């Protein structure tokens, strides 16, 4: 079983702030939320069924993040470097970077914390004409089939598809392991391959501005009965009740 797990290095969104009306992007990097779940799932599958678990990352090349993922148990990481990638060119880059791997399963997180577009796994599945199982919260392999449970808002479904397939996972699927110090140290010896890829992005960022939610801060006074009635009126006006 050969598994490819995608992970992305992003700016730590919890630290991005608006300073003097500008976004302050001078923040540390991190592996995007849930990408560790994708890597964990890939490593668990490898441990269970043998084969390899390869990580792919496109965009920011951060050695520390890459080593963290290797420490979790990936066999190697491939880093695609280039100028700027949109979702489509990211999917193309991942295909390019793993073209020599006979991949049974591509695993991604349901979305990344920077773009939140949830689109790379779907695009990759389309480009390779493979089945896509998205928002997966549990998963098992049965011969050449993958059976997955997913939640789509109010619905929960059990899906089945033939391998090879593409999967996007939610944070529920597993609990990413915390590597031991020894695994961290061994990760330094694992291979990291660099691949240059000149992408032709279809979507370009023109501007990036802060998004500030200005709350109304209406203090409702009076006794509790009056206050509650006023509140209900306001909430109806806002269309949330």
């Amino acid at each position, binding site marked *: 079983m050969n598994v490819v797990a995608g992970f992305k290095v992003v700016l*730590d969104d*919890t*630290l991005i*702030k608006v300073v003097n009306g500008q976004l302050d992007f*001078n*923040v*540390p990097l991190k592996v995007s939320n849930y990408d560790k779940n994708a890597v964990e799932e890939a490593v668990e599958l490898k441990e269970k069924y043998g084969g390899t678990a390869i990580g792919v990352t496109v965009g920011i090349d951060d050695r520390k993040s890459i080593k963290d993922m290797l420490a979790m148990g990936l066999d190697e990481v491939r880093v695609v470097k280039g100028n700027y990638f949109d979702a489509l060119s990211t999917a193309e880059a991942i295909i390019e970077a793993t073209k020599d791997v006979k991949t049974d399963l591509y695993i991604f997180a349901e979305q990344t914390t920077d773009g939140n577009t949830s689109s790379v796994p779907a695009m990759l599945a389309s480009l390779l004409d493979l089945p896509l199982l998205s928002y997966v919260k549990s998963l098992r392999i049965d011969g050449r089939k993958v059976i997955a449970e997913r939640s789509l808002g109010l619905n929960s479904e059990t899906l089945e598809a033939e391998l090879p397939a593409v999967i996007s996972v939610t944070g529920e699927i597993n609990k990413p392991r915390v590597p031991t110090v020894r695994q961290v140290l061994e990760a330094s010896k694992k291979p990291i391959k660099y691949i240059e890829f000149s992408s032709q992005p279809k979507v370009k960022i023109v501007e990036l501005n802060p998004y500030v939610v200005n709350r109304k801060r209406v203090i409702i006074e009076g006794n509790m009965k009056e206050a509650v009635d006023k509140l209900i009126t306001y909430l109806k006006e806002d269309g949330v009740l």
Partner: protein
Amino acid sequence: MMVELLKRLGLNKYNVDPKPHIEVDENICIKCKEKFCIRVCPAGTYEALPDGRIVVHYERCLECGAALVACPYGSIKFRFPENGISYRYG
């Protein structure tokens, strides 16, 4: 304009541990009049209840280490958290 403590703490990045890394000995605190911890701690981690007990808001902790010398009566058990704060300027 003075900036409220909680607003200042809110500027920092915390990855709060699920379990507290600070404990106090209720029996000591309830008898303690001075409550040095409240004056020393720069994060307002220790809050006194009217009955004299101390509530520990461990999620505010700046990991400065003052807790290790803030209580002369040895009430505070402090260890560093597994995650906790990450400074970006430092």
